[in-house]
């Protein structure tokens, strides 16, 4: 079963008087439980595609289905609810909330879902153990290394039990060893939680971790080898 179905997706950005096309008619389907990488050079449209899939940006035209819902016709409140309940995000620059400690960062989405503090803490405790940061629970993000921060981000993305996790260049700010460990962790979580992972990268070295590779160039997806 496909978790994402995209047809004829176009996304244009206005730049002064001109229109810059970022996506020029993308068709894509992602199966549930997949571990997929979107690869392409800078400016190819990877982030834009992930943003549209993640419901944080809107398509100029085309159809985007997340689960069985067509997201192009939803209100901001409904789309925010989809992001909260169905999607987890991992960012290149980690994007943790600096005023919250590690455990609070992880349980943050659960509190947005109005889960009780006890329930949120229980789930966050499980995740923090899985990403190996139990002893850092009371630390603020500024007190962690890049790799540790990204582990926190992975735990935060998974804490709500989302249908999919989107990771935009999750290893770009990490050294190769740490990057590899992060990808190993994502892979392990994919197997453990059965969560669909889609991550973008321009680094060919990380492709070996992906089960499926989608190449994007100039806003168009290149045909996948049979």
């Amino acid at each position, binding site marked *: 079963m496909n978790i994402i179905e995209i047809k004829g997706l176009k996304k244009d950005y206005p730049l002064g008087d001109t229109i810059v096309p970022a996506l020029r008619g993308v068709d894509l389907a992602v199966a549930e439980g997949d571990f997929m990488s979107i690869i392409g050079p800078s400016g190819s449209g990877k982030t834009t595609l992930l943003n549209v899939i993640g419901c*944080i940006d809107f398509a100029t035209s085309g159809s985007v289905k997340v689960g069985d819902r067509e997201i192009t016709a939803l209100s901001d409140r409904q789309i925010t609810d989809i992001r909260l309940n169905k999607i987890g*995000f991992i960012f290149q620059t980690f994007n943790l*909330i*600096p*005023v919250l400690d590690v455990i609070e960062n992880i349980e943050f*989405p659960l509190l*947005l879902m109005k889960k009780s503090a006890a329930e949120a803490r229980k789930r966050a405790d499980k995740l923090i153990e899985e990403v190996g940061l139990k002893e850092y629970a009371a630390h603020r993000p500024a007190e962690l290394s890049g790799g540790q921060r990204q582990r926190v981000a992975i735990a935060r993305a998974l804490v709500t039990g989302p249908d999919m996790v989107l990771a935009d260049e999750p290893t770009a700010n990490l050294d190769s060893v740490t990057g590899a460990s992060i990808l190993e962790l994502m892979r392990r979580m994919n197997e453990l939680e059965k969560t669909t992972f889609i991550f973008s990268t321009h680094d060919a070295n990380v492709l070996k971790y992906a089960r499926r590779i989608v190449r994007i160039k100039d806003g168009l997806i290149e045909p996948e080898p049979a």
Partner: protein
Amino acid sequence: MLLIKLSLRNLLRQKRRNILLGSAMTIGVAILVTANSFSHGISDIMFNKVMRYVTGHVAIRFNERGGVMREIFRDRARVLAAIKDEPQIEKIDEGIAMFARAIGNGRSDNIILIGADTKKGQTEKEKRELEESFRLTEGSWKDVDDLSVENPVIITEDKARYLNVKKNDIVRVRFRNMFGQDQAARLTIVGIMKIDNIFMQGVVFLELTRAKELLGYRPYETGSLSLTIKNPQKNAFAVAGRIHERLKPGTAVIYASAAGRTGRRPAAVLGFKSDDQSKKKIAGLLKLASGSFDKAFKKDGVIVPAGLARALGVAAGDAVNIRYDRKFEKAPREAVLRVSAVCASGEYPGQDVILMNDAGFYDLYYQELPAAPAAGPYSAVSADWAGLVAPEWVLLKRTFNTEEYTRKYQEIARNKWKGTTLDVSTMYETASDILKLESVLNIITISAVLVLFFIILLGVVNTLRMTIRERTREIGTVRAIGMQRADVRNMFILETFFLTLFSAAVGVVTGFIVMRLLSLITFHPVDNPLGMLLVNSHLYFLPTFTGIAGSVFLIIAIAVITAWFPARRAANLSPAQALGHFG
């Protein structure tokens, strides 16, 4: 809870910036609280420390025949009966005061001689207030009750110095009593007091009974009454209204035994109103049998109905002797009335009613109030006569602010009053200008503080804009994770709210410290109007919960409303754009 936790923690991120902005808010609130407490203090001084002693919270004033100085009501018990059942009344004071010329040792000056009821039981609070307002440097309040001393008085320190007198010296005073007669008396100084209030500089206290005797009051008569009531701001108008209702006058009647040349029989003597309009109506109602209306309408004019004239054997020009029981004295009062006109009984207000011009009638009536018999020959006048006969007193209409009150007294001054005017007023109308003064002071303060608040407002906007700019990626992150727009907006508003709340709380504490420090300074404003702003030579502040809550609410409202717009802008940022923001 999540939003509150985030807001409070975010506040600590930019400590210096927030402390600077918070300090400005603190100063604004401190100024507002201090100024508000000061203006409220002035009102309190005027209402509760000056006006309360001068007029009371509710005042009942009497002016016999419209005489400004003739503040007398002849039936003290009657007016006390109208107020005795009011549960809100804490204290009733008789306002006995007179202007006098005091002659000391080689110098003379004007004084206000005030009757002080030293025999009345005082509560601890009243004693404390009295001691605070009038600090005795020599003698004691008990000394004014000393019967062995001739008119013992307590005088102000300044006045004693000016008159060159000290304790146990004699001061001679010249004054005019209530009936316009010049009088002289000797006062013995038994105490000297120190006061700050400029309005009290010329005050000399004498025991109430002696003051009343000097002014010519009899024991059953009273001067104007001042009522102290519980929670005056809430109750004064209602209490005054009820007392006013109970003091509605009836018709003034002297139940007498009238004797003429040939007979004696019971009669009722009524006064008729002698203004031109009433006289015209009366002339239309009566049918003259003998004598003339010209004579009857003069001050000593007397009209007798034909039936009574026949029974008494009198005609126009004859004398009628009347004798009546007095209300407060044992021996009956006798008077001779000269008949000016005899009228047919038909349209007359009563069969055995003698009508007198109200000017002459009130002379007789007020001098010796008549006793009311169990059953008299007179019950009530007909509707035609209802507005034409003299009432027991003239009850002035109630007013509700200084403007109405002043207008009422201007109208009164234009009339020639024959009867006693009775006025019930509250200090909120006799001195509503003071309340206006408080409002004006508050407006001036708020105007000044609004300038400060405008600067704060710019600070709030600027700080939030900087904060939002710095935290744009963070906004993008929380939006991407699933925070709703309204929550993002509320998070920023809550930050401003908490900053303002903490600053306002510190502002209130600072305001109290400032007030405490200012009230430690001692002022010596001799003969200076500033004296009225002082209590015991110190500035007086009266902070109120409403004033403080109002100030805090004002600044929080301004800050939150100001924060709403940049906060909404932050909430409306597209998550993708916000996440892509650098800077």
